[in-house]
């Protein structure tokens, strides 16, 4: 029997859901509101809401004081580039783990995931020196490689999970029908895994876009993405909350819009195979 839905229960559930959503979203809302306040209003105590003085000046100043389009472009190249490079490596890896697993496949997957448990700061110095030595410090290609390596375990894991859902018999049928490995992947596996691949791409673009530790550590000016753009507004001459908020809002706006439009795909992809 289905659980009875009384109006009272429905109202309480709705209220609870909205409260949780508001708590989660509150810091972002605070940041957006602050970005439209004057510096004085932004630091006022108690905080000002309706009585605050609103302005667009912060945006104008942030725009004129820095080269936003360059940071934006660097973010696009680094996040999309690292994800695509990751896919090129992860698709064959996930394919072999899902369809021709060996005795150590599970261990290998766990090991890949365990690398995510190590604090990034532990390898900061060696990687910094390595990048200097290889001449890829403060370069987009360097960051593409760094972020690809950082997200590779997640990409492989996600694709592995999606590929496992594809019945092996269908790939065997393709083999019987005369398809070699390449045709099997292009005509059968990839089209069937499109929802999974799409959500993997989306999630990893978002992760790479939001990554701050390596993007700030391994860049100075040339390859600096939006994370460095935000950091540049916490200047030594003092914290300017309103301008910092405006810069942060400008940095997260593109990914927020992308996330908004692709939320259905993301949710579908992340719960793919959870229920048969």
């Amino acid at each position, binding site marked *: 029997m289905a659980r009875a839905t009384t109006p009272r229960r429905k109202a309480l559930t709705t209220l609870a859901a909205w409260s949780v959503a508001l708590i989660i979203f509150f810091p972002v809302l605070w940041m957006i509101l602050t970005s439209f306040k004057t510096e004085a209003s932004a630091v006022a105590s108690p905080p000002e809401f309706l009585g605050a003085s609103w302005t667009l000046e912060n945006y104008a100043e942030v725009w004129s004081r820095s080269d936003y389009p360059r940071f934006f472009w660097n973010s696009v190249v680094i996040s999309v580039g690292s994800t695509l490079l990751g896919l090129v490596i992860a698709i064959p890896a996930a394919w072999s783990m899902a369809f021709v697993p060996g005795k150590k496949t599970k261990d290998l997957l766990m090991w890949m995931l365990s690398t995510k448990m190590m604090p990034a700061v532990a390898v900061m110095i060696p990687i910094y020196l390595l990048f200097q030595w290889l001449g890829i410090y403060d370069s987009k290609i360097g960051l593409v490689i760094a972020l690809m390596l950082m997200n590779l375990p997640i990409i492989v894991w996600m694709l592995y999970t999606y590929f496992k859902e594809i019945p092996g018999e*269908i790939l065997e*049928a393709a*083999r*019987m029908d*005369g*398809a*070699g490995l390449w045709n099997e992947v292009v005509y059968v596996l990839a089209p069937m895994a499109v929802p999974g691949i799409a959500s993997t791409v989306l999630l990893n673009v978002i992760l790479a876009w939001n990554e701050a530790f390596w993007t700030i550590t391994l860049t100075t000016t040339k390859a600096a993405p939006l994370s460095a753009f935000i950091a540049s507004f916490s200047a030594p001459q003092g914290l300017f909350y309103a301008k910092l908020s405006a810069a942060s809002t400008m940095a997260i706006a593109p990914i927020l819009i992308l996330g908004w439009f692709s939320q259905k795909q993301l949710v579908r992809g992340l719960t793919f195979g959870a229920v048969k």
Partner: protein
Amino acid sequence: MGKIVLKSVRKSFGEVDVIPGIDLTIEDGEFVVFVGPSGCGKSTLLRLIAGLEDVTAGTMAIDGRDVTAAAPSERGLAMVFQSYALYPHMTVRKNIAFPLKMAGLSQADQDAKVTAAAKVLNLTNYLERRPGQLSGGQRQRVAIGRAIVREPSAFLFDEPLSNLDAALRVTMRQEITELHQSLKTTMIYVTHDQVEAMTMADKIVVLNAGHIEQVGSPLELYNTPANTFVAGFIGSPKMNLIEGPLAAEQGAHAIGVRPEHMGIVSEGGWEGKVLLSEHLGSDTFLKVQTVNAGTLTVRAGGEVRLSHGDTVRLAPLPGKTHRFGSNGLAL
């Protein structure tokens, strides 16, 4: 052409010998059924022939060509899977055309062959649909269509009817038999259902624990089973196997009498009580607990008015008793 010869074919998964060693010749144009209980290695044997599994030892030849190490696509065989294994993102047309596309045929040739196959299989009106929009029987026809357009040297069927309901299974069984009669191509068919084996096969291969127990025509296996395993496996209901003094009287370790060869007699024979009677109209199945011969199954023609607790006397029909030695082999 489609003569398939297996010589000492062995398959192991790690330490486990699934198929310890099989020699088998399948003649061109034959309809061969591999039958046996679950886990007997029949599907593995089919997958070895298909090339989907590598043999551990031994050789395999199709029309005299050694294909032991050949990829599935190089063997010229077509396979119909239990789950149909259709490509869910392609239309029926594209599903059937896929092997032709892989073979590099022109679009015009592909279209002509797909149209012809669709006509044979009554799929013409469904060509633009996707597999998800078809019934089980239609999906099975698409899978067969995808196999026949290739004009393979042999068809391999891996329990293709087990996902269908009983009525559809009978229809599809007849369709596959008719297809074999019209194409005259070698077919290898795996099933655990001995009725399918008996009705479809030119030759049945009975497998048990990776070994071939007997190879022969359906009636050979029915009339002269080589051992107790085949005797028990072929025929429905199962053959009654009686051990002990009654068997010793006939100089055997065990005697076997099929339920349909067990007569109800008025005197003599083995006395027993009816435990269960099943009335099918055309036949009556009785389960009888006898004094000397254990529990026996009887298949009596027509309607027999016996029910639980009634006393009955049973005797095998003359010349219908099978004798087996202590090693299980027929005497």
